[in-house]
Structures are given as C-alpha cells and as structure tokens.
C-alpha cells in the first residue's frame, strides 16, 4: 500500500516563500544598483560585490562552525544585507572596511541572535553605524558622481548636499546661498549627487519600492508614514525659518531617506507587526531623522533613527495589537 502523508490542516500552502520574497527585494534593488554603477563606476560594483560575498561568507562560516545550525545562506537575506550595506557606504570605501562592516552586520547584527528573523536591529544598519563611528574619516569621504568611472581609486571627493547645508548653516550662512552649491532637484531625483553608493537616486529607489508594493512584498504603511512625517516635520521648521532649515523636498531627495524608508525601515524582522504599529514606527523614524539632521552632530540621521526605532519595536508590538475580531462590538 502507498505510504500516506498525515499532516495537520491546512493542506494548501501559498506560493510565497522566504527566498522568493528576498530575491524579490534583490530584484527590486537593480535600478538603484544600475544608477550607482553609472555614477560611481567600477568602484561601486566592486564594493557591492565585496559586501555581498563577505556577508554570505560570514553567514556561512558562523552557521557552520559556531551555531552549527542549518545553512541558509541562499535564502537571499544575506544578499540583501550585503547590497544594502554597500549602498550605505561611500563607493570608494577601502574594501577592508567593507569586509569589517559585513562581519559586523552579519556577525553582530544578525547571527548573534540566531540568524534570520531573530535580530532586533537591522543588520545592514548595525554594520553601517559601526563603520560610521569607527572610521569617521573614511566613511565621510564621499566620491562625487562621475559618469562610468572605471578607476577604483582616484574619484574626486567632496561633500554631500547634506554636509554642505550642515556646515554652511553652522557657520551662519543662509540656506538660499548654500543651495547654489547643490545640484538642482532634477539631478537630485536622478541621483546625480554625492553620497553613499546606493542612496543617490530617489527615482530608482521609488521604482523598486513600487515593484515591491505591487508584488505585495512590503505594505505602504512604513514608507508613507516615514516619508510623510519627515516631510511634515521638515516643513514645519522650514516654514519657521527657511534660511536656517532647508525645505522638505530637499530632505526627501538627499541622503539616505528614500533608501531608508523603502528598504531599511521596512525590513520585516525589525519593524512592527501591526498596521498601526508600522505607522507609529514610520512617524518615529521621520521625526528622529529630521531632528538629527537639523540639530545633531551628524548631517545624516536615517541610520540612527531607524536603529533607535528598531529598539522600540518590541514595545510597539506589545502595545499596539491588531484589532481583535469581536473585541469592541459595534453592531448595526
């Protein structure tokens, strides 16, 4: 007789799987990747590859020799971590530092807690902030975009728009004057500006975001709440004093805000579960980002604010439960 399988219900299973989702994210990152390669040339390719390979390698080594659990390096999450880490550092970062960043992201940010799904903080951002604090010089030396550069070393470096504003304002210069040193909004949108390897092109990132929304990989709640609240808070300050605080659109298009809101705040593992929780999370990120950008020591606050909000996630999950069926009965 045939050996029947016995299992609990249900007996159907949706097509979606972890690796499908993860590779979906990787796929959606392609436009941003292309823009990054276009503006930063070979260096960006090398940094991205190094980060991806290093992340996968560290995950493999730790799983094999330290945790001794099943190997999951091909589920795609380490690839995302690698790509996003590379996207978050200057394209000319020495490769040794890229490897250190990957080790920290995977080793400390992810595998310390048991791997996929268990980490309280976004691994790529842990890696990035670690690098940021450890190697402030290298991490703030940004190459300027130069189309299809094949040289690995001699990129022209210069300040990012956010640094220009931060420095200038701290020296008492009015924003309107500083704006002259910054590419116009069309260029900002396309990605023709100085910055981390993958964060530059708002349009490419939005494209990826739309793809993920359509494929239902992410929901709109976090990105919209994040970008919306950042724009609103920035707008309030801008209205108060436009010569000290740049306008909201500037904030949206520069730095890592787009990348953060669409790819890093939405990381399942480190964001809240309920819809209301997601919105609170997004608003918190937006508020903190603007506060750090405008008042902190750093010109950029996306990484820090997402990490700080990551810490709030367990409390948010505790406090903001989904609405239970039959909880408050409104009959009619």
């Amino acid at each position, binding site marked *: 007789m045939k050996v029947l399988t016995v299992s609990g219900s249900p007996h159907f299973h949706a097509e979606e799987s972890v690796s499908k989702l993860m590779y979906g994210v990787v796929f959606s990152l392609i436009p941003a990747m292309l823009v990054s390669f276009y503006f930063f040339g070979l260096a960006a390719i090398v940094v991205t590859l190094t980060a991806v390979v290093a992340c996968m390698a560290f995950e493999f080594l730790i799983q094999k020799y330290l945790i001794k659990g099943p190997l999951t390096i091909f589920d795609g999450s380490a690839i995302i971590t690698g790509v996003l880490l590379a996207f978050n550092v200057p394209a000319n970062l020495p490769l040794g530092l890229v490897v250190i960043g990957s080790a920290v992201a995977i080793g400390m940010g992810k595998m310390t807690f048991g791997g996929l799904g268990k980490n309280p903080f976004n691994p790529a951002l842990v890696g990035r902030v670690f690098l940021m604090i450890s190697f*402030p010089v290298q991490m703030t030396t940004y190459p300027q975009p130069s189309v299809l550069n094949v040289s690995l070393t001699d990129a022209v470096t210069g300040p990012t728009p956010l640094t220009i504003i931060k420095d200038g304002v701290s020296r008492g210069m009015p924003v309107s004057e500083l704006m002259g040193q910054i590419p116009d909004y069309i260029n900002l949108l396309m990605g023709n500006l100085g910055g981390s390897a993958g964060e530059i092109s708002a349009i490419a990132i939005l494209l990826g975001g739309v793809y993920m929304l359509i494929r239902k990989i992410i929901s709109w709640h976090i990105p919209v709440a994040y970008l919306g609240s950042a724009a609103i808070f920035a707008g309030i300050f801008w209205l108060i004093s436009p010569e000290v605080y740049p306008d909201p659109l500037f904030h949206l298009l520069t730095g890592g805000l787009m990348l953060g809101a669409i790819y890093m705040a939405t990381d399942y593992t480190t964001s809240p579960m309920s819809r209301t929780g997601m919105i609170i999370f997004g608003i918190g990120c937006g508020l903190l980002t603007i506060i750090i950008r405008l008042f902190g020591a750093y010109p950029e606050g996306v990484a820090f604010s997402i990490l700080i909000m990551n810490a709030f996630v367990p409390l948010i999950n505790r406090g903001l439960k989904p609405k239970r069926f039959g909880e408050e009965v409104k009959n009619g």
Partner: protein
Amino acid sequence: MGQLKNFTKGFVKDNPVFVLLLGLCPALGVTTSAFNGLGMGLATTFVLVSSNIVVSIIKNLIPSKVRIPSYIVVIASFVTITDLVMEAYLPALFESLGLFIPLIVVNCLVMGRAEAFASKNNTWNSIVDGMGMGLGFAFALTVLGGLREILGAGEIFGWSIFAGDGMLVFVLAPGAFIGLGYLVALNNIVKKKMES
C-alpha cells in the same frame, strides 16, 4: 578548606564580571585601556581585601539592624582612602578613572563579599576570598581593557600592535558593551570546557 580553590574560582568559574555580572559599571566605564582596567581592578581589590579584613574583625560588635550601614561606612572609608592616595601618588591614573573610584563604594561585589563572606568567616579566609575575587575582577577588567585597546587603538599597554587607527567604537561606549558581551560568551564556553 581548599584555600587555593577559593582563591582561583574568581578567575573563570565564578568570575565576578564574566559570570556573576557584578560591578559592571567600572568594568565598562574605565576599560578604555588594559592599564586603566588593571588600575581599577587593583584599587577594587585593595578596597575589597581591606574591608573584608575589617568586617571580619568587627562582625561580632555590630547589631544586625545596622550592619549594612556600618559596612557601607567601612567600605566607603577605604574607598576614600584609595581616592586620596591615588590622587596624591598616581595622578594620571586618578584622572582617567575619575568618577569610578568613589563608585567602588556601590560596587555590589565589595558589599556582597563583605556581607556574604567576611561577616561569617575568619580574617584569614576573608583575605583569601577578597584577594581571589578582587584579582578575578582585575583580571576581567584587564582583559576587557586589553581587548578594547587592541581593537580600538591598535595598542596594548601602550605598545603598538598594528599601525594606523583602530576601530573607534571599541574606545567608545558601545564597544565596551559589545566587547564584554562576547567575552562573557567566551567565558561561558571556556567554563563549560573546563567542567567537562
């Protein structure tokens, strides 16, 4: 009874920092270098041993209701003595340990040993216990300080290990937590190996 064991248990098996997780504030706060760690460890050992001695001597003279305040006063005295002596003769170390010297007073390790051990044992045993625990504490602080110094500045006890800057994080607050976290994990593993 097993004086040697009493003495050595503070290093790995019952290490005050790695296993008992006591006195973490100084363990994290001053360990920016191996030297600072060692200095703090020795200062604590001094306070620990001295207060153990005094407590074991006066233990029978103190009514139980005020024993805690009394012990605190004893400990605080030795801490203040350390503070004054260090400022006089080791001003550089005094500068870098800063606030954490007066805080030896509230190091749970010191109070804990005074109460748990010295108040029930004779003077000699209390000295051995204080020494063991204190040196274990110093050991832990030195290791953590060394780790942070190597990774953070590329040096150990001031000798250069590798050229260039280290990873700044390890000099700063997060590095203290992270370094200690992994050292505790390592100690767990070593401890397990030793047991089996």
